[in-house]
């Protein structure tokens, strides 16, 4: 090894306490940066995979983003419903493998209520085509049975057998309770990191049943149909909010989209969920970029600390530099020595930061999924992370050039006798 570099390493080791603290700052800054990047990428990933295995999402004509918002994220309200006839026409199309109807508009203690069919649990996919799983119980069979998502169950402390009542309207607007027709929880779904976790699922018939004695968003005064009598009515829905469509062949997707968008019966909209989710992410992506920018600043602060430490140490090391100079070291070698020290600390800090991020994310992954619905994949660092790591090291090199340059200047000015 180059004798100067060997001495640089020994010298750095002799100042290991100060450098260790600087190293710690860089490790933490890098960890923060990489963690933000990793969560950002994975949040985007799990967002983009909120729904998968669905070829088209169909609703009344509106914006693609708005349709996704209410059909998949159960947020906001549909401007219009679609007729049951239209749904049947789509479901019966020869290219269609399956079509699951969705009916929204009610809520339970702030959580959205989704009216659908039991085959929703079979067709719905999220992430890498993962199917929904029940931690306990199973799909609803009777009219007044409900299946709740994992977050609903955890937050409200629900177990199978729990009785719940639904509210009319979304977001606790106090538009009225369906208190006369209670539901029983028959199944709880495993966590998915998607809006499913925050949803109460009931049958389509249940939605119709709830509203038998309602008209125009209001209970009909003096009319009260008790739950045991609803079976006597025709519970087939007249209209639904949206539908998820799976095709026999993916290649038919654009043909089918055009068919729906040009549907004669009423104005409909079909969107490809992946494309629409990307569009939606663009709209809310500013936050993640801000976070990344803030953590980049933290890294800059950490590296500025490194430069300050090296510069402050340089004054105390003037003797050391003069001795090395007398022994035959040139200004170039002293420059190399100081720069190498800074670069070494930065590189070590960056790599330890990477290790800490990997360790931390694998430890925190279950908790993040449980609490925030973010699926953190256990995987090798992505290209984005490696690019950031490279940037940290490159910035560290620039930061180390300053003390290196100072050492150079000092050795030229001092010669063999430092003026202290």
């Amino acid at each position, binding site marked *: 090894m180059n*004798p100067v570099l*060997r*001495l640089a390493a*020994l*010298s750095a*080791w*002799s100042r290991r306490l100060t450098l260790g603290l600087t190293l710690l700052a860089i490790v933490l800054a890098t960890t923060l940066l990489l963690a933000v990047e990793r969560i950002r990428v994975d949040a985007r990933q799990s967002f983009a995979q909120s729904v998968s295995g669905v070829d088209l999402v169909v609703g009344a004509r509106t914006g693609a983003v708005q349709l996704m918002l209410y059909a998949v994220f159960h947020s906001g309200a549909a401007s219009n419903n679609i007729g049951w006839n239209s749904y049947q026409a789509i479901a019966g199309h020869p290219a269609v493998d399956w079509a699951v109807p969705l009916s929204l508009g009610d809520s339970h203690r702030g959580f959205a209520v989704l009216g659908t069919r039991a085959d929703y649990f079979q067709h719905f996919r999220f992430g890498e085509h993962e199917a929904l799983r029940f931690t306990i119980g199973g799909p609803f069979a009777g009219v007044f049975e409900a299946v709740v998502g994992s977050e609903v169950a955890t937050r409200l402390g629900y177990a199978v057998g729990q009785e719940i009542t639904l509210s009319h309207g979304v977001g606790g607007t106090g538009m009225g309770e369906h208190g006369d027709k209670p539901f029983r929880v028959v199944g709880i779904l495993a966590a998915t990191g998607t809006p499913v976790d925050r949803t109460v699922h009931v049958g389509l018939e249940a939605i119709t049943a709830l509203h038998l004695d309602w008209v125009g968003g209001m209970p009909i005064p003096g009319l009260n149909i008790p739950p045991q009598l609803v079976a006597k009515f025709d519970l087939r829905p007249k209209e639904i909010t949206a539908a998820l469509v799976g095709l026999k062949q993916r290649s038919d997707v654009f043909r089918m989209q055009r068919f729906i968008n040009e549907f004669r019966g009423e104005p409909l909209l079909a969107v490809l969920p992946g494309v629409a989710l990307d569009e939606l992410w663009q709209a809310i992506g500013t936050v993640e970029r801000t976070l990344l920018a803030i953590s980049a600043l933290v890294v800059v602060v950490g590296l500025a600390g490194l430069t300050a430490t090296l510069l402050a140490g340089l004054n105390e090391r003037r*003797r*050391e530099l*003069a*001795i*090395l*100079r*007398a*022994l*035959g*070291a*040139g*200004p*170039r*070698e002293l420059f190399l020595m100081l720069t190498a020290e800074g670069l070494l600390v930065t590189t070590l800090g960056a790599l330890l930061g990477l290790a800490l991020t990997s360790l931390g994310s694998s430890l925190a992954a279950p908790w993040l999924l449980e609490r925030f619905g973010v699926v953190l994949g256990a995987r090798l660092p992505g290209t984005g992370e490696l690019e950031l790591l490279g940037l940290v090291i490159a910035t560290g090199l620039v930061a180390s050039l300053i003390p290196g340059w100072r050492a150079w200047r000092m050795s030229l000015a001092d*010669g*063999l*006798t430092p003026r202290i």
Partner: protein
Amino acid sequence: MSALRITDLLFRWPRQATACLDIPRFELARGERVFLHGPSGSGKSTLLGLLGGVAVPQAGRIELLGQDLAQLRSHARDRFRADHIGFLFQQFNLLPWLSALDNVLLPCTFSTRRKQRAEPDPRTAAKRLLTQLDLVAELWPQAAAELSVGQQQRVAAARALIGQPEFLIADEPTSALDAERQQIFIDLLLRETAAVGATLIFVSHDRRLAAHFDRTVALDEINRVKPGAIS
């Protein structure tokens, strides 16, 4: 051939109006041991820097062991210094985080020539020098910072002598020692220098130390710039 020959040397620090050194002629024979004295600020350290090739004069020639330093590029001057000159400074001479023995071995890591001339091998040579300089073996592996000032100066002397450099430059090496130890150290240095046949230039502001040297030179005798004119 002389060990050092200076002709018409003129040196001025950057950003200073007047010259610091103006030495028409100065010569040292091989093996000569010279005491150079002058008050603080008279340019002694500057002259040593020029001899080491760390600074370059604006005019004139410095021939060291027959080599005109101005002919060498800066990197080659650094090599030349490592190969041929042993340096001894005032206190804080050693790298405090290296052991005494490793400090002595430092010149051999910078200069292949010094390494080859350290016979039979650098470690043995270093141990022999330390023994000759009365430093007990228990102290060798200790970090230099843990040694007393007197011990440190002897380690520094061993470091200057290892690999038999032809030229030894000592800059106030005894200023941190008491009077009695000063004389012991100087005797030691003179003896070791003579043993390897090196040329020694010993710089101090304290004329009382001059007794045992072959020759005594006052810097203001050879330098035409008078101390008052500087700084």
